[in-house]
C-alpha cells in the first residue's frame, strides 16, 4: 500500500487556514451520536478528550494510572515553546518552524511543523485562561527563558514544573466534562488491543487493572495519546508504567510504525548509581541557561575526581575543559540535546568522565560562575557597596534557588551532594522518542479512524526534538489540531449509529487478549519480568544507544530475538489473571518491548546515515559530527507488520522540502 501524507496544497503559511476552511464539519446534534475513544490522558490525550467533549462528542477516556492527572507529561520540567515574541528578540512563527525543522535534522514534515508553530501562541493564551500559573516578571507579564538549539527566548515555564501545571490545566478541562457526563473516565484501565471493523478502528479491548476483567469498548474513532517507548531501554526518564503496548498493538493491527530508531538521549540526567536502580532522573535543560558543562583537562585529574582524592572545586580554571563552549562557540552550553549528549560521550569515552560507576560516565554541570554573576548583579541592585565574596555567593545562590530550587533539591535528595557548593554530575539518558505511529497531516494513522497524537506519533520532531517542544506538540495536537481533523472524518459517520460490541471482531480481539494473558500467567518459568527487561535494556543501551554500528546492530537484532524466546520459556508471572496483578501488567508491556526493540534495531541498521539522535559510527564528518545523506535517506521509514518484527516491510514516505534548504546542521 502507498502512503499518502495528505498535505494540503498551497503556500506553507496558508495550508492550515485553507484546510480548516474546506473540511467537513459535524453539526452539534450529530456530534451527540458519535463516540470517540481516547487512550492516554497526558497533555495530548487529556487535551483531546476535553476538547472533543466540549465540542459535543461522547468521549470515553482511558488511563492506566489511578487518575488522569498522573500521566507522565506531569514530569516535564523546563517549559513550553511558543512564538509569542513577547521578548521582542526576533521570534516569529517562521523562526519557530525553522528552528524545529533544523533541530530535527531535516527529518520532519514541513507542513506539520509549520502548523505546530502557528498554533503555538494559542496554547499559551488557552492555558492562561485555564488558570495555569506560569512564571511572571515584576510587571505581571509572562516571563520567558531560552532552550537548546535556538537563539531566542520563547520558552514559557512554571518553575521546574511546567509539565505538571499544563497537565493539571488539561485535567481541569477534563474534569469539567467528566462532571457534565461528556467524558466517561476509565482509570486503572489498560488498552490491550484495538478492534478493526471493515478496515476502520471501531473500538478497543481494555483490561480493568483492579479486577482483571477484559472489557469491550466501541466508538466511531480511536485516538491514541499513549506516549513514547523510551522504557524499551529499561533505564530512562520515563515513568515506570510508560509503555509501547497501545501503539504496538495498533501496529500489529496494521498501523505503520515510523522511525522507531529516533530516540532522544537527554544530556543532563543524574548518572546511574548501581545495578539496583529502577529509573533515571532528568535535570531540566533549563539548567543549561546558567550551568557550564565541563570535564578536567588532564586525565590524572579526572581519575583523582573519580577516586575521591580531588574535589572538582579545587581544579583550577585553566585545567578545566568546557568542551561545549570550546567546540560550539556560538551556541555554547545551549546546543541541541543530541549534540550535547554525543559530546559528553566523546569526553567520557576518552577517559575524562567524572563518575565512579562501571563506565566512568559523567560530566560536571557547574553553577559557580552563574552564582557569582547573579550575586554581583543583586549586590548592585540592592545598593551594597564593596560586597564581600561571601555576600556575593549568598546573594547569587538565592537567585539560583528561585530559578531552579526544586531541581537542586531533587538532585540533592538523590545524590546526597549539594549542587550549590559543588558542581552537579550529569550524564545523558534515554528521555523521549521522536519515532512513533505513522500519521498523515490529519494525525490519522494508515488505519482509518485511528489517530495518534503527542509523543505516540512520529510527526513533528524529525530525528531530534528541541527542548520545550514536546509539551507544545502534545497540547497543539490535542487542543487545536485533532478536534478539527477528526471532524472531517467523523462527518461521514453521522448515519452509522452506535457500534455494537457484539460484532465478531470484538469477540476475536477479546479472545486473543485473554489468550495472551493466560499464556503469561500459566508459563512455568523461574525468572521475574524485570530480569528480562533489564537484559533488554542493556542490549539497547550498549548497541542501539548513542552510537550505533552495523556490527552492533546486527548483534542486537539476534540477541533481542533470542531474549524474546527465553522470555516466553522462562518468565514467571505470579498471581491470577482476574485480580490486580502488577507483574502481569509488566509482563505484557515487556513482551511488546521485546518485539519493538528488534524493529528499532532494524530501523537503525537500515538508516545508513547519521541524523539527530540517530548516530551511526560509519557516517560522521572528520570533526565527528553527524553526517546526513539526504539524497538517499530524506524519507520517513514506515514499517508494516507482517507477523514478526524481522519480517516487517519498509515503506518510504519521502520528505519534500519546499521552503527550507537542507543544510548541514551547525551550532559552531
Amino acid at each position, binding site marked *: 500500500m502507498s502512503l499518502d501524507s495528505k498535505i494540503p496544497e498551497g503556500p506553507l503559511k496558508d495550508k492550515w487556514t485553507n484546510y480548516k476552511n474546506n473540511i467537513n464539519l459535524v453539526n452539534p446534534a450529530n456530534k451527540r451520536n458519535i463516540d470517540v475513544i481516547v487512550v492516554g490522558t497526558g497533555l495530548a490525550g487529556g487535551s483531546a478528550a476535553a476538547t472533543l467533549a466540549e465540542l459535543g462528542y461522547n468521549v470515553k477516556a482511558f488511563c492506566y494510572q489511578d*487518575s488522569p492527572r498522573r500521566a507522565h507529561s506531569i514530569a516535564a520540567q523546563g517549559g513550553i515553546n511558543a512564538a509569542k515574541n513577547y521578548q521582542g528578540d526576533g521570534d516569529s512563527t517562521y523562526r519557530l518552524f525553522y528552528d524545529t525543522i533544523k533541530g530535527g535534522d531535516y527529518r520532519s514534515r514541513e507542513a506539520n511543523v509549520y502548523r505546530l508553530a502557528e498554533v503555538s501562541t494559542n496554547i499559551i*493564551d488557552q492555558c492562561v485562561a485555564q488558570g495555569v500559573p506560569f512564571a511572571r516578571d515584576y510587571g505581571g507579564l509572562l516571563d520567558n527563558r531560552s532552550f537548546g538549539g535556538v537563539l531566542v527566548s520563547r520558552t514559557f515555564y512554571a518553575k521546574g514544573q511546567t509539565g505538571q501545571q499544563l497537565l493539571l490545566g488539561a485535567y481541569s*478541562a477534563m474534569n469539567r466534562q*467528566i*462532571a457534565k457526563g461528556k467524558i466517561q473516565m476509565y482509570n486503572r484501565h489498560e488498552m490491550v488491543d484495538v478492534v478493526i471493523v471493515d478496515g476502520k478502528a471501531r473500538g478497543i479491548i481494555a483490561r480493568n487493572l483492579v479486577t482483571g476483567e477484559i472489557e469491550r469498548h466501541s466508538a466511531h474513532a480511536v485516538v491514541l495519546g499513549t506516549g513514547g517507548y523510551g522504557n524499551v531501554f529499561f533505564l530512562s526518564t520515563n515513568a515506570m508504567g510508560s509503555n509501547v503496548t497501545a501503539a504496538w498493538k495498533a501496529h500489529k493491527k496494521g498501523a505503520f510504525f515510523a522511525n522507531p530508531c529516533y530516540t532522544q538521549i537527554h544530556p543532563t540526567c543524574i548518572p546511574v*548509581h548501581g545495578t539496583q536502580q*529502577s529509573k533515571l532522573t532528568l535535570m531540566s535543560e533549563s539548567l543549561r541557561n546558567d550551568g557550564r558543562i565541563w570535564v578536567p583537562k588532564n586525565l590524572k585529574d579526572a581519575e583523582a575526581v573519580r577516586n575521591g582524592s580531588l574535589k572538582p572545586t579545587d581544579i583550577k580554571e585553566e585545567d578545566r575543559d568546557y568542551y561545549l563552549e570550546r567546540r560550539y562557540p556560538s551556541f555554547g552550553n545551549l546546543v541541541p540535546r543530541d549534540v550535547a549528549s554525543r559530546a559528553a560521550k566523546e569526553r567520557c569515552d576518552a577517559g575524562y568522565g567524572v*563518575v565512579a560507576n562501571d563506565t566512568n560516565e559523567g560530566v560536571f554541570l557547574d553553577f559557580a560562575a552563574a552564582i557569582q554573576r547573579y550575586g554581583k548583579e543583586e549586590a548592585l541592585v540592592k545598593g551594597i557597596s564593596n560586597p564581600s565574596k561571601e555576600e556575593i555567593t549568598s546573594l547569587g545562590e538565592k537567585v539560583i534557588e528561585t530559578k531552579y530550587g526544586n531541581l537542586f533539591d531533587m538532585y540533592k535528595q538523590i545524590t*546526597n551532594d549539594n549542587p550549590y557548593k559543588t558542581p552537579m554530575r550529569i550524564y545523558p539518558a534515554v528521555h523521549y522518542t521522536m519515532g512513533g505511529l505513522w500519521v498523515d497531516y490529519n494525525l490519522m494513522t494508515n488505519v482509518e479512524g485511528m489517530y495518534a497524537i503527542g509523543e505516540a506519533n512520529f510527526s513533528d520532531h524529525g530525528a531530534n526534538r528541541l527542548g520545550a517542544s514536546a509539551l507544545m506538540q502534545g497540547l497543539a495536537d490535542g487542543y487545536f489540531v485533532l*478536534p478539527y481533523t477528526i471532524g472531517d472524518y467523523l462527518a461521514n459517520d453521522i448515519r452509522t449509529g452506535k457500534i455494537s460490541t457484539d460484532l465478531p471482531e470484538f469477540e476475536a480481539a477479546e479472545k486473543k487478549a485473554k489468550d495472551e494473558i493466560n499464556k503469561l500467567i500459566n508459563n512455568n518459568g523461574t525468572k521475574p519480568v524485570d530480569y528480562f527487561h533489564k537484559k533488554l535494556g542493556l542490549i539497547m543501551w550498549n548497541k542501539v544507544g548513542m552510537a550505533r554500528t552495523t556490527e552492533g546492530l546486527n548483534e542486537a537484532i539476534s540477541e533481542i530475538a533470542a531474549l524474546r524466546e527465553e522470555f516466553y520459556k522462562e518468565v514467571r508471572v505470579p498471581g491470577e489473571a482476574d485480580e490486580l496483578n502488577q507483574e502481569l501488567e509488566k509482563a505484557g508491556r515487556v513482551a511488546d518491548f521485546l518485539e519493538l526493540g528488534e524493529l528499532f534495531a532494524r530501523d537503525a541498521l537500515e538508516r545508513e546515515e547519521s541524523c539527530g539522535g540517530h548516530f551511526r559510527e560509519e557516517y560522521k564528518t572528520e570533526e565527528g559530527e553527524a553526517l546526513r545523506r539526504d539524497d538517499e535517506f530524506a524519507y520517513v521509514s514506515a514499517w508494516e507488520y507482517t507477523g514478526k518484527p524481522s519480517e516487517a516491510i519498509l515503506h518510504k514516505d519521502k520528505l519534500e522540502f519546499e521552503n527550507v534548504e537542507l543544510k548541514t546542521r551547525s551550532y559552531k
Partner: protein
Amino acid sequence: MSAAKKLNLTLKVWRQKNGNAKGNLETYPLNDISPDSSFLEMLDILNNELINKGESPVVFDHDCREGICGSCSLYINGEPHGPARLVTTCQLHMRSFKDGETIYIEPFRAKAFPVIKDLMVDRSAFDRIQHAGGYISVNTSGNTQDANAIPIEKENADEAFYSAACIGCGACVAACKNASASLFVAAKVSQYTLLPQGQVEAKDRVLNMVKQAEKEGFGPCSNTGACEVECPKGISIENIARMNREYLSATISK
C-alpha cells in the same frame, strides 16, 4: 554515589488480599540494600525475592519516581512518605535508614481511601472533588484573549503556583487525625482564588468542592497542622485559612 556499606533490614509490610479481606503485617528480612537505592527500589528488590520464592509480590502504587506524579503513597514508620521532609516515598532514599533497622510499611489510611490491595488505596475521591469545581469554565477554542492581556501581580502568580504544586497524593489526609482533605481542597481553591481568571466562579467552586469533600467522608479540619508538615510539596496551611475565608464569604453572599 558512594560505595557506602549495604543495609540489612527487617520489613513489616501490610498485606491485604483485597478491599474486603482482613489485612495483617507480614515480616520480611531484606539484606544488602544500597543506601543509594530509593525506598521503592528497595521494595522492587523485595518483590523480586518474593517472586523467586514463588510468593506474591507486594502491591503498591508508583509511576514517575521523580516525586511529581503523586502515585506513590505509603505510611512508613508512622509517617506518610516516611521520615524525610518535603519528599515523596519515591524520592526517599535508603540512606535515611540505619543498618539493622525495622521499617513498618502501611497504606495511607482513611475511610475515603479504601484499600484495594496491600499498600494500594483508592484515591478517586480526590478526582470527584475536582469534578465538583476544580476548573475554570473556558472552552478550548484558542480564541481566548492574549495571554498578556491581564497582568498578574508576581506575588499572586507565585502564590498561585505554590498552591497549584499539590500533587494530589493524599499525604495530608493520611497525616490528619480526622482524615480531612482540607489541605488538598484548599490548594486548588487558592490557586484559582489568587488568579483573576478564577474569580468568576469562585463562590460556587469553594461551596461545591467543600460539599463534595464532606460527601466523600473526609473529616473536618481542626488546625493541628500535621498535613503541612507531611506534605511532600510543602503546601502551607495558609491555604486552608484562605479557603475558609472564601467559604464564609460565599456562604454569606450566596
